[in-house]
């Protein structure tokens, strides 16, 4: 047992060259993005490709995309916990961390989009509850608080384990002592923690659903063509979970490789999540098809202009790429056992994330390019500033993740111990995976 666990402590105890290399590359990207953003602060949103009538672009796309990704944690750790799926144990922490960091990035992007970020607190001073943006602020704050709590609670026993390991530097031991809140692992403590985690797992599901519903309502509450749709709430939630699972698979693959976690993150995990992904690919296709067929059949001029902008005009490459990545590829790759390999699932997940980003873009931008009244300019080309912020967002996400997994165990040690027998039963398949990867 101790032998097998050594690999879980290693990232926190030893810092290799790889860590410094990754951190410096990410640091450079972040510095570049910070430069681009500070230039935007100084000059104004003039440095973006935004205009009239395309008032929203890449930043809002990123906002919706990252909030979507944040649903990974909720799905895996909360839904699977509530349903008692044992295989979730080694990947819950990784998923919960995605939730928290993606939320930070999502809210960050909406602040970057603001013309006057210095007036952010006006939302608290003058907030009016009839604005869907204020619904967003409320449900996002609740979600961030809840998911931080939900990340922290199952971390407590692990922090106590780390506190008791003498090999770590002084300041880290001090940190773990403070954060573990005097956890000694008594029956009473365990009982209380399980209860709290159980309550949070149930609570966080409706909160997560509300968050992405409200994000969709920012669009759906307006009367703009192809935004004013009643299925946007569930449609966005489905898309969010879809891209959330895909992100979790990518993160799992990176963690497994860089920390040699083959005996914890097994092929079975990729296969199970791959199947879930397939289910959500179907759900996504169903919602998308319903949405577009309804718009097409109704034949309303304003809606038709937006629809054909996507189907056959300038957005058609992005629109059909979205269908390819979100439905055709997952359908072909994941429904066939021979292609639903670890590598196949990872590749599909990467394409799904690109596809889901395109989906957000295809919702935000085309509608704005086709206003009801005649308008002289109606195109949008993001500038290098916006691309830099997008790149910086991914870099910050990775940076938060790298630092987190340096200081905290990315696999929940006590939860895996608790589910020890199940892990033991899966062990034969593990060695095969290790051999294949080496």
């Amino acid at each position: 047992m101790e032998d097998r666990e050594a690999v879980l402590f290693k990232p926190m105890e030893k810092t290799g060259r790889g860590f410094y290399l990754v951190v410096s590359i990410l640091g450079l990207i972040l510095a570049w993005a910070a430069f681009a953003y500070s230039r935007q602060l100084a000059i104004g949103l003039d440095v973006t490709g935004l205009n009239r009538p395309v008032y929203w672009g890449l930043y809002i796309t990123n906002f919706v995309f990252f909030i979507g990704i944040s649903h990974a944690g909720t799905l895996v750790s909360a839904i699977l916990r509530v349903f008692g799926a044992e295989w979730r144990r080694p990947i819950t922490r990784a998923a919960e961390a995605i939730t928290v960091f993606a939320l930070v990035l999502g809210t960050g992007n909406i602040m970057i989009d603001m013309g006057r970020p210095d007036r952010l607190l006006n939302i608290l001073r003058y907030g009016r509850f009839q604005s869907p943006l204020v619904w967003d602020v409320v449900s996002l704050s609740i979600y961030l608080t809840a998911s931080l709590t939900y990340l922290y609670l199952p971390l407590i026993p692990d922090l106590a384990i780390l506190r008791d390991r003498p090999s770590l530097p002084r300041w880290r031991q001090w940190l773990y002592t403070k954060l573990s809140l005097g956890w000694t692992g008594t029956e009473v403590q365990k009982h209380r923690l399980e209860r709290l985690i159980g309550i949070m797992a149930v609570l966080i599901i409706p909160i997560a659903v509300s968050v992405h519903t409200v994000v969709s309502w920012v669009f759906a509450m307006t009367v703009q063509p192809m935004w004013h749709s009643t299925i946007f709430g569930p449609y966005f939630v489905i898309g969010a979970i879809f891209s959330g699972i895909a992100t979790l698979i990518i993160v799992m693959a990176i963690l497994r490789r860089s920390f040699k976690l083959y005996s914890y993150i097994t092929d079975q995990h990729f296969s199970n999540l791959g199947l879930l992904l397939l289910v959500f690919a179907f759900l996504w296709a169903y919602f998308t098809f319903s949405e577009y067929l309804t718009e097409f059949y109704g034949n309303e001029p304003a809606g038709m202009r937006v629809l054909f902008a996507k189907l056959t005009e300038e957005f058609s490459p992005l629109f059909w790429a979205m269908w390819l990545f979100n439905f055709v590829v997952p359908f072909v790759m994941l429904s066939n056992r021979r292609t639903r390999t670890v590598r196949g699932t990872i590749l599909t997940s990467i394409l799904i994330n690109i596809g889901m980003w395109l989906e957000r873009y295809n919702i935000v931008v085309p509608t704005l390019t086709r206003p009801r009244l005649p308008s002289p300019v109606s195109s949008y080309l993001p500038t290098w500033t916006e691309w830099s912020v997008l790149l910086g967002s991914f870099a910050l996400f990775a940076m938060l993740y790298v630092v987190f997994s340096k200081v905290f165990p990315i696999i929940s040690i006590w939860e895996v111990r608790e589910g020890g027998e199940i892990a033991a039963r899966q062990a034969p398949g593990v060695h095969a995976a290790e051999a294949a990867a080496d």
Partner: protein
Amino acid sequence: MPRWGMVIDLDRCVACQACTAACRAENNVAFAGPEDTELGRAIFWHEVLSEVSGEYPNVRGTFIPRPCMHCENPPCVRVCPVGATYQDEEGLVLQRYERCIGCRYCMVACPYAVRYFNWRDPQWVESLNNYRNPDVPIRPKGIVEKCTFCSHRLPVPACNQACPGNARFFGDLEDPDSVVSQLARGPRAFRLLEDLGTEPKVYYLREGA
């Protein structure tokens, strides 16, 4: 309390754009410059929309002068998260420049696209630097601005005063005897995108009737 409204007679309008020019001067509207105008960043509180339909030789051009509609039921006011956009007691849809956070949700929600964003610090051509209207505040970068129906000089908006064809009328829609009320009740009167339920207070009189 008056309910301010405007009527524009499309039969009398010659699309000279004097209204647009007068509006810019009156309201200290900044210059975007050729590059930004090309990109769609120019600010026009008032604009003359043009649309060409049909194929040669049966071509038809339509011109529609377009101030803010000052909707009775304004979608922009509903979505503003901080109350920077509001409707005053006389029915005008106005903007609190010092409160706006620049999220542009109001612009996205307005079906008439009458709202404008300050993509950068306001600029004017050199020769106009000494001709700012002291009655109208200068708007900084990062916030949204729009037509106010010239709330600082009611009841004579600059666009109406400048119109050489007497195509524009302004007054109290609440008063049944006012010119605007009478015209708005007439058979030629219509409003833009009426079916959206926004209840605009700008009426147009149909052409060629």
